[in-house]
């Protein structure tokens, strides 16, 4: 008899109103093993992990740890069983410090009830170092961190539990290459220390680098497992999507010479400095940069969100001064923080999709039902948003499907300029390919796309031109032929362009 | 068409036990004065075996109109109202008139509709009495503080008016502070504390009711300025009678609410028996000082 697995989930089922999220799913993880859990958006990966974390009670099935059957009563119980998890959706308290967030619920104490604040900070520094966040003080408020930094804090928090089983639900979605590599190294170290890691990601290269085995879900069903050494990327895709996928990136189009967006000498005190560029009709303009380089800020500046901005933003010579003005001028902005800025979580998928268009399709402020239904149906189908009824609250959708709703709401506006900030964050490969196709189609219609992305392949694979940013400034402009990963990294980390 | 209230008077089942049923709509019960009115009425009703239905408008004339409407739904024989406001209550009185229910007012009168009688005190006169007392006690001169009641009620307004008639008529008086404390003891204490800070010399204080007088007294006592100040309240509630006996409060004005309540129920019975009643009964407001304090009966 072989030694029992570190973790075994058998025949797990979980139902939500109208959805069978998990249908007889079984997985197993051994000590010193990294298991990649794969599947399309809405396949049930997060749900399975939440069962393990004690957030959801399964309708059916059994869980074994080291061969002993357990019933996981709740999140705390799960922690006590040696399981810790990084949730796909952030789970931090914005107005508390990094240190407090990391040790919430299990702070070192002097005596009962009285915190040992020195010790908390000391420990925090240790864990921040571990994930490469050494330049951040333990006292910083979470609200003041960028998305990527928050993700790293989540990772630090999870590591600090010293658990046996670590679950990471798309931890790399918000990270750039460098940070991702750092994380993958950490995962390998964890593995060497004998831990079992369950890793969810939509970036299959990462799987090849770090995972030992994969398990694939589709529509809540268990499809199969394999050792990573036995499969190729294409095999994985086929298992996930159920069919073979053709080229991920479409052939690049040829932009017109007509300028569509003109950004002239834009500065925002302390944030952006003298940003100057144009985007052509039919062009995909990539914006590269490291974390904190100001890409997000640039996207917001173009969208008219800074009242203290100097310089001008014009679309077809129409001046942009506010988000409303930006929309009227034909700009659409897909932000990188879908929960805070992209969605109204308590409203339906239907209404979220329509939010920016309401003004246009309402005749004298009164709704026209048929028009609305038409738009919603079209985009739910085009983007394959997995939802059994568009009237359900968007909060119940899987992460990737939420992201599709954000995309859909802007795409149907027929924008002239589409700004995409991390557009495919958390999106599965199949859907990614479709989104790229849509982008291609849009450029063919003369739309110009500005794309901020931390995914190097995406940036290189799609952009006609790439601007590199560093500390709020544009440090380089690279044509599609010159652009390479090395060059981008050079300029992104402060290198100067020699004329 | 306009509303016509129909009383369910004809409903035989509701006419339980053949007792006389009197509705008493009180303006508020958040004030000891009115609680005593209610208790007087209850005591009399018990004695005479009268069914008494009481509502509390919580100082809201709109609610009082609703209360009256609700009472008119309950086949009462006589309606007694202690109005929140004399003008606003006219509509309620008219509703009772429309429903053919005999109605009269106590304490504060109605400026409209037909009431069979009104039993109450004269607030203007009450203010006069207070002013005159201070005139006599202080020889018509000195620094005076006036603590007003709720300045949205005619009692509050009229007492102030009556008091200030006397103040104005005596050039020796200087009203150094005039603040409202809403007939409330705690508020009066706070207001008086501040006034004591601002005014090193105060000779007389008029508080428009005893609750406020007692609040002011607490502040004055704490400041150790009891001796220098002549204080008068109004109502003659038990604790102020005690305070007069103890020499802390100089005077109050007896408008004993308990008897007003009793009188209301007695009058209601007279009306139901079709006995004649005066069109207006103004109960006496009498000055209570150390001299006559032992003769005052509050219950």
């Amino acid at each position, binding site marked *: 008899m072989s030694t029992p697995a570190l973790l075994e989930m058998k025949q797990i089922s979980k*139902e*939500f109103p109208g959805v069978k999220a998990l249908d007889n799913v079984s997985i197993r993880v051994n000590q010193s093993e990294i298991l990649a859990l794969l599947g399309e958006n809405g396949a049930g990966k997060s749900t399975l992990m939440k069962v393990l974390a004690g*957030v*959801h*009670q399964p309708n059916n099935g059994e869980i074994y740890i080291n061969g002993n059957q357990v019933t996981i009563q*709740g999140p705390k119980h799960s922690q006590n069983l040696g399981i810790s998890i990084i949730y796909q959706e952030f789970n931090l308290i914005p107005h508390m410090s990094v240190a407090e967030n990391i040790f919430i619920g299990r702070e070192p104490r002097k005596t009962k009830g009285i915190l040992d604040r020195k010790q908390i900070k000391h420990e925090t520094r240790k864990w921040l170092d571990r994930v490469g966040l050494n330049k951040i003080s333990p006292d910083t408020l979470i609200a003041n961190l960028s998305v990527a930094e928050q993700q790293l804090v989540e990772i630090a928090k999870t590591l600090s539990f010293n658990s046996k089983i670590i679950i990471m639900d798309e931890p790399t979605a918000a990270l750039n290459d460098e940070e991702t590599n750092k994380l993958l190294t950490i995962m390998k170290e964890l593995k060497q220390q004998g831990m079992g890691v369950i890793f969810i990601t939509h970036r299959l290269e990462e799987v090849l680098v770090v995972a030992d085995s994969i398990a694939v879900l589709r529509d809540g069903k268990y499809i199969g497992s394999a050792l990573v050494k036995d499969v190729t990327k294409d095999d994985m895709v086929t298992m996930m999507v159920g069919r073979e996928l053709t080229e991920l990136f479409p052939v690049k189009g040829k932009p017109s010479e007509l300028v569509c967006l003109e950004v002239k000498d834009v500065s925002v005190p302390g944030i952006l400095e003298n940003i100057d560029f144009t985007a052509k009709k039919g062009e995909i303009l990539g914006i590269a940069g490291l974390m904190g380089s100001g890409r997000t800020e640039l996207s917001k500046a173009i969208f008219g*969100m800074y009242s203290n901005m100097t310089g001008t933003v014009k679309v077809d010579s129409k001046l942009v001064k506010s*988000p*409303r003005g930006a929309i*009227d001028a034909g700009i659409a*902005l897909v*932000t990188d923080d879908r929960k*805070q*800025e*992209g*969605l*109204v*979580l*308590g*409203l339906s998928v239907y*209404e979220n999709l329509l*939010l*920016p268009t*309401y*003004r246009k399709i*309402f005749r004298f*402020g*009164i*709704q026209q039902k048929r028009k609305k239904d038409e738009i919603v149906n079209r985009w739910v189908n085009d983007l394959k948003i997995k939802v059994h009824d568009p009237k359900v609250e968007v909060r119940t959708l899987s992460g990737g499907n939420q992201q599709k709703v954000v995309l859909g709401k802007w795409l149907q506006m027929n924008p002239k300029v589409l700004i995409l900030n991390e557009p495919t964050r958390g999106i599965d490969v199949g859907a990614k390919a479709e989104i790229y196709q849509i982008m291609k189609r849009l450029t063919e219609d003369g739309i110009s796309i500005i794309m901020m992305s931390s995914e190097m392949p995406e940036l290189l694979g799609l952009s006609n031109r790439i601007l590199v940013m560093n500390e709020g400034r544009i440090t380089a402009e690279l044509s599609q032929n010159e652009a390479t990963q090395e060059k981008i990294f050079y300029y992104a980390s402060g290198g100067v362009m020699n004329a | *068409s*306009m*509303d016509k*209230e129909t009383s*369910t008077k004809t*409903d035989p089942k*509701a006419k339980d036990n053949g007792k006389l049923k009197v509705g008493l709509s*009180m303006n508020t*019960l958040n004030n000891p004065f009115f609680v005593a009115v209610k208790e007087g009425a209850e005591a009399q009703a018990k004695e005479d075996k009268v069914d008494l239905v*009481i*509502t*509390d408008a919580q100082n*809201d*004339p*709109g609610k009082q*109109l*609703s*209360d009256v*409407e*609700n009472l008119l*739904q309950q086949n009462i024989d006589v309606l007694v109202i202690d109005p929140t*406001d*004399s*003008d*606003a209550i*006219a*509509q309620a009185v008219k509703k009772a008139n429309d429903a053919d229910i005999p109605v009269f007012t106590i304490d504060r009168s109605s400026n*409209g509709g037909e009431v069979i009688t009104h039993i109450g005190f004269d607030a203007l006169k009450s203010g006069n009495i207070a002013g005159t007392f201070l005139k006599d006690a202080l020889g018509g001169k000195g620094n005076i503080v006036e603590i007003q009641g*709720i300045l*949205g009620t005619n009692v*509050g307004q009229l007492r102030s008016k009556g008091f200030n008639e006397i103040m104005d008529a005596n050039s020796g008086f200087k009203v150094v502070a005039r603040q409202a404390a809403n007939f409330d003891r705690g508020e009066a204490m706070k207001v008086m504390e501040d006034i004591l800070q601002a005014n090193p010399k105060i000779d007389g204080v008029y508080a428009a009711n005893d609750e406020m007088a007692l609040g002011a007294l607490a502040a004055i006592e704490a400041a150790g300025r009891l001796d220098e100040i002549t204080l008068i309240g109004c109502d003659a509630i038990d604790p102020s009678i005690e305070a007069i006996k103890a020499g802390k409060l100089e005077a109050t004005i007896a408008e004993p609410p308990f008897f007003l309540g009793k009188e209301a129920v007695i009058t209601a019975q007279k009306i139901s028996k079709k006995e004649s009643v005066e069109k207006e009964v103004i109960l006496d407001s009498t000055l209570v000082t150390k001299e006559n304090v032992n003769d005052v009966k509050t219950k």
Partner: protein
Amino acid sequence: MPSTTPVQKHVENKAGFNWLSLIEKYRVLLIFIVLCVVAGFLSDVFFTMSNVMNVLRQVSIIAIIASGMTLVILLAGIDLSVGAVMAFSGAILAGALTAGWPLPLALLAALGVGLLFGLCNGFFVARFGIPSFIVTLAIMVIARGMTLVYTKGYPLVVSNESYRFIGSGRIFGIPVPIILMFVIFGIMYWMLKYTSFGRYIYAIGGNEETAILAGINVKAIKIAVFGIAGLLSALSAIIYTSRLMSAQPTAGNGIELDAIAAVIIGGTSLAGGKGAVTGTLIGALIMGVLDNVLNLMNVSPFYQSIAKGLVILVAVLVDSKFSKIKK
């Protein structure tokens, strides 16, 4: 304050799902019906036509204010000034009539004043981002003071007899305030459901940042919503003043709490973004029926408030038991 764990939120009863979801949807209505049935048992006057009209008419003033409050709360705001604005509008109305203004003009003046105060609330909230609680508290205190200054503390008597119709008249046998109440709720219902303005209110209350980024003119909508709340306070003042044929300086004292209670009992979340005016109407009716039946049963006033508090507590308790999504 939500207290259920995220876990519980997802717990679902499989069997009879549709039946349960129906109960869930109409739970406030159910509670109201149960209350009425109980009231009917306790007092045989309760279900008489004249008493029903009586209750509805009494409720109309709070209900109309609560309908405006619903919009404000949907925006995750609050309006404490409604009662004070009501008092001031009423005073202006009475003043105008006494000064000999024609009735329509006087009504417009009152509505205008209410609107103005509301817009003022909205302006400070939207323009400066000051919490609505504190803005409307300040405006409440100011409006009360202005009312006292304007009326000198005395009620203002109104003698215009045609004006009496608004508060005490009937159309087809139905008291005018009741008709006004239903008309207002009809408009509100339609507006929230079928106009972009209405949908934006939900979006802003649900996630303001997203709404701004969707190009919604968030400030304008906030200002408008507070303006509407002020306008409806004035409408209530018009009814109230007509009912009493006098403007009371103390009118509407504490009505804000009752209105907010009606909104919450009606299922609208103080956190914003969730709820409907239909619930508010029922919430206001629950409170009105409660007052009425306690009076009809001749419960002593001191015990009335205990009973009222208990019933409210039970109602929301039952409500929370029925509702799966507890907020």
